[in-house]
């Protein structure tokens, strides 16, 4: 005999430890299994309710799935209700049992009881799979035209799920959906607007057909703001804010990029912006949506000024919620109207120091978007523990991209290394070293700056700072000590350091108790490099290096022994230990490229030109858009893009490969890389060899997820290797001409 639900909850609540709770649940699960086995119908309702409770606590409940189906098939409404609830909570579209429920759903959708139909619609909208959508789509469509507003609203929301699953049913739904806009019930209107939004998001070609409804939507919106008090949907004196928000959003979709539609809605947008009470949260929700719409559509200047003023007011608000949405909106607006956002820079920078992490994060994103050559110098502030990894990376990236001069670059990066060395990536350190090597006139400065940074922060220095600074000292330490130090740069403090001081500093680095093997390696190399230059300190240096001949770290030991041997050959030692020559920057580019900058950076132009020559990347929807570029080699790659599921950030790419040459391409592999805001998954190619004169014989699927969808366009690098007549061929290039919006 199983417990009553109430008793089960009480027992669980009395448990003092997690183990006790597990015991109670295990016992009850066993009793439930037994009851299910006995086909006991009287308590089925109660048992499924208990399963839902257990599921909420995180225990497995799969053994009860069949029971929910039996409940759905039963005649009574209360049983059905629990059954559907169980269906929505315990099952999801992946489970195969779901197939069995299609028939019950069909019966219930045709039921004469509106609440039964409502339940079925709600459940279908929650769990429907594509097979079910195909089977039950017509019923949903019929219910959209039902006499009963309760069913119309539920059918509208269910329809959006059905369409997401089966896009080819879109046409008939798309025709029917606008009739919902003439509905008198607020909730049907709301559901209708939601459905239209969903259809527009899925099928951008429908937007054009929906534009004629703009005046109607404006009328509804106007009646909401101008109409008198309507108690049914009133929230603090504002008439149905939820509907207003939804309509504003739909207007945004319809008005985007169309001057005529934008013009038609400008009056009502101005009315909303001026007449909405901003003292309440509901009013602010509407203003927030309204501002986004004004900025997204082709508004006239005056309206934009109004919107920007509202944002300014939001930003100055004391309520953190309002400030959060203001920052959020500004981040969206920044691509449209950067000047308007720049005006609030001071306030935004203040927000980066806010006590609230959500606000800090938004503000930081925004600051990142705002930085340009003109204002980078103002971007100096102390970091904050939580943001150090992110912030230090972004600062490094910004410094690399926009540094006004090299000296400033060195200063800024050393400063970041001092303050947040633990979070700076190796790339940034390498880039700094590279820059120093290639800037001959700054060698002495780099040595002085490193010496200063290291002496001031020796106790707290992170490995990255130690490595960069010891490297600079080892390479250019003699410029610091000798008379060759050159003039001090403007505004620089003099450094009083002799050879002994430099060696002493390196010794201190070596003797830091926490120094890692990598730091030891850098310091040993630095000392070795200084040995021929610091004649007076040679003995001391040799002693320091020899001390590590017994190190347990193999690499450190090797260096120590090898350098000691090198000193024994005075003829070649100094030559080996000379300054390293300027490095080829391009040789480093692959590892230094910050990724995100690839599309914008001037240097990338060359590689994309190569890409076009090497590799004709035909891009297009339905193979309709975009023309082909003549390919130099026999290989042509064609990308066909599609959006996976309902997620606009996810793109499925079907790459098909054509070989126009006379010889087969063997051992064919495609590798792709994306910037770090994207993730990429490659499925295996359909074959490893391309037969001669074949078009699209081999294909490969790529799944890309762009976490900054809408802000950053898709871009990827391809590297294709194959064997042509036994000779290996490698082609690579960058694809940055994806159509906008992907």
């Amino acid at each position, binding site marked *: 005999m199983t417990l009553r639900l109430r008793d089960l909850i009480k027992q669980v609540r009395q448990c003092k430890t997690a183990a006790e709770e597990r015991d109670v649940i295990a016992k009850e699960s066993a009793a439930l299994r037994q009851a299910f086995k006995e086909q006991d119908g009287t308590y089925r309702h109660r048992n499924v309710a208990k399963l839902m409770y257990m599921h909420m606590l*995180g225990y497995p409940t799969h053994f009860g799935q069949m029971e929910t189906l039996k409940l759905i098939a039963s005649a009574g409404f209360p049983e059905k209700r629990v059954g559907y609830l169980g269906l929505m909570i315990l099952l999801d579209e992946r489970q195969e049992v779901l197939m069995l429920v299609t028939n019950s759903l069909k019966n219930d959708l045709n039921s004469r009881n509106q609440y039964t139909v*409502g339940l079925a619609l709600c459940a279908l909208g929650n769990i429907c799979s594509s097979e079910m959508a195909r089977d039950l789509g017509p019923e949903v469509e019929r219910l959209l035209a039902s006499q009963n507003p309760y069913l119309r609203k539920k059918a509208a929301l269910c329809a959006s799920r059905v369409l997401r699953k089966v896009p080819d049913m879109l046409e008939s739904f798309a025709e029917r959906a606008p009739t919902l806009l003439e509905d008198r019930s607020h909730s049907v209107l709301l559901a209708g607007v939601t459905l239209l939004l969903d259809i527009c998001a899925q099928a951008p070609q429908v937007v054009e057909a929906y534009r004629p409804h703009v005046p109607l939507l404006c009328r509804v919106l106007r009646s909401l703001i101008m109409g008198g008090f309507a108690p049914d949907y009133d929230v603090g004196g504002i008439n149905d804010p939820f509907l207003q928000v939804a309509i504003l959003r739909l207007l945004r979709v319809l008005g985007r990029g169309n001057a005529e539609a934008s013009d038609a809605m400008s009056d009502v947008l101005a009315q909303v912006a001026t007449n909405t009470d901003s003292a309440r949260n509901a009013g*602010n929700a509407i203003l927030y949506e309204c501002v986004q719409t004004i900025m997204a559509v082709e508004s006239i200047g005056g309206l934009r000024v109004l919107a920007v003023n509202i944002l300014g007011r939001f930003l100055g608000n004391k309520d953190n*919620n309002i400030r959060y949405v203001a920052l959020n909106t500004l981040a969206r607006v920044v691509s449209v109207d950067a000047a308007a956002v720049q005006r609030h820079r001071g306030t935004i920078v203040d927000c980066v120091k806010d006590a609230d992490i*959500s*606000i800090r994060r938004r503000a930081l994103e925004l600051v990142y978007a705002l930085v340009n050559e003109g204002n980078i110098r103002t971007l100096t502030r102390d970091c904050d523990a939580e943001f150090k990894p992110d912030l230090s990376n972004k600062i490094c990236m910004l410094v690399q991209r926009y540094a006004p001069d090299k000296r400033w670059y060195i200063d800024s990066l050393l400063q970041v290394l001092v303050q947040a060395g633990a979070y700076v990536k190796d790339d940034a350190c390498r880039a700094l070293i590279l820059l120093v090597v290639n800037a001959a006139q700054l060698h002495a400065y780099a040595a002085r700056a490193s010496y200063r940074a290291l002496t001031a922060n020796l106790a707290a220095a992170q490995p990255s700072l130690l490595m960069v600074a010891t490297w600079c000292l080892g390479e250019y330490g003699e410029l610091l000590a000798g008379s060759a130090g050159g003039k001090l740069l403007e505004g620089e403090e003099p450094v009083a350091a002799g050879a002994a001081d430099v060696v002493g500093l390196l010794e201190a680095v070596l003797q830091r108790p926490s120094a890692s093997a990598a730091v030891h390696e850098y310091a040993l190399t630095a000392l070795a490099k200084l040995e021929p230059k610091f004649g007076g300190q040679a003995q001391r240096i040799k002693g320091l290096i020899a001390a590590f001949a017994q190190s347990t770290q193999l690499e450190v030991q090797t260096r120590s022994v090898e350098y000691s041997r090198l000193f024994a050959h005075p003829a070649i030692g100094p030559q080996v230990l000379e300054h390293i020559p300027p490095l080829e920057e391009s040789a480093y580019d692959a590892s230094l490229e910050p990724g995100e900058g690839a599309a914008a950076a001037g240097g990338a132009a060359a590689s994309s030109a190569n890409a076009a020559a090497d590799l004709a990347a035909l891009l297009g929807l339905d193979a309709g858009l975009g023309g082909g570029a003549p390919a130099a080699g026999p290989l042509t790659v064609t990308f066909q893009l599609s959006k996976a599921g309902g997620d606009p950030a996810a793109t499925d790419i079907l790459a098909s490969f054509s070989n126009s040459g006379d010889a087969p391409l063997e051992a064919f592999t495609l590798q792709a890389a994306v910037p770090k805001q994207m993730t990429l998954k490659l499925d295996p190619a359909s074959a490893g060899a391309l037969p001669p004169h074949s078009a699209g014989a081999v294909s490969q699927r790529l799944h890309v997820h762009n976490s900054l969808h809408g802000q950053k366009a898709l871009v990827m690098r391809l590297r294709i290797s194959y064997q042509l007549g036994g000779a290996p061929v490698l082609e690579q290039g960058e694809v940055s001409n994806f159509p906008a919006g992907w």
Partner: protein
Amino acid sequence: MTIKFVLLVNKQGQTRLAKYTDSSLTTDERRALEAEIVRKCLTRVDKQCNFVEHRSWKVVYRRYASLFFLVGIDDEENELGILEMIHCVVETLDKWFSNVCELDIMFSLETTHHIIDEMIANGCIVETNKANALTPVQLLERVS
């Protein structure tokens, strides 16, 4: 623009109601997600804003005495609107249970689900009028 999940959690961080419209998570993942989100939200002070970003979601939360309402949304949704919606749901629950408390929700889980289903369906707001949302629930009560 969808609501991905609705969670009701008490001050100790125990889940009292969970509703997901995003079926991409398994039971274990949901449990882990709940723990992470709850930890993030419960440690915040009153003055801070009601939005927390977590993985690819935004969580809009609101505290009512010992009970936290957490709603996970995607990037497109209007955060202030959802905040208002939470209040609307709470008012409806309040009307039904007359001064709703944690125990009401615990022991009448099914009814609470029913009420929320009437107001939020398939991740979208469907009804914001209290009386309309409660009519089916009342009828059901009378039948059983």
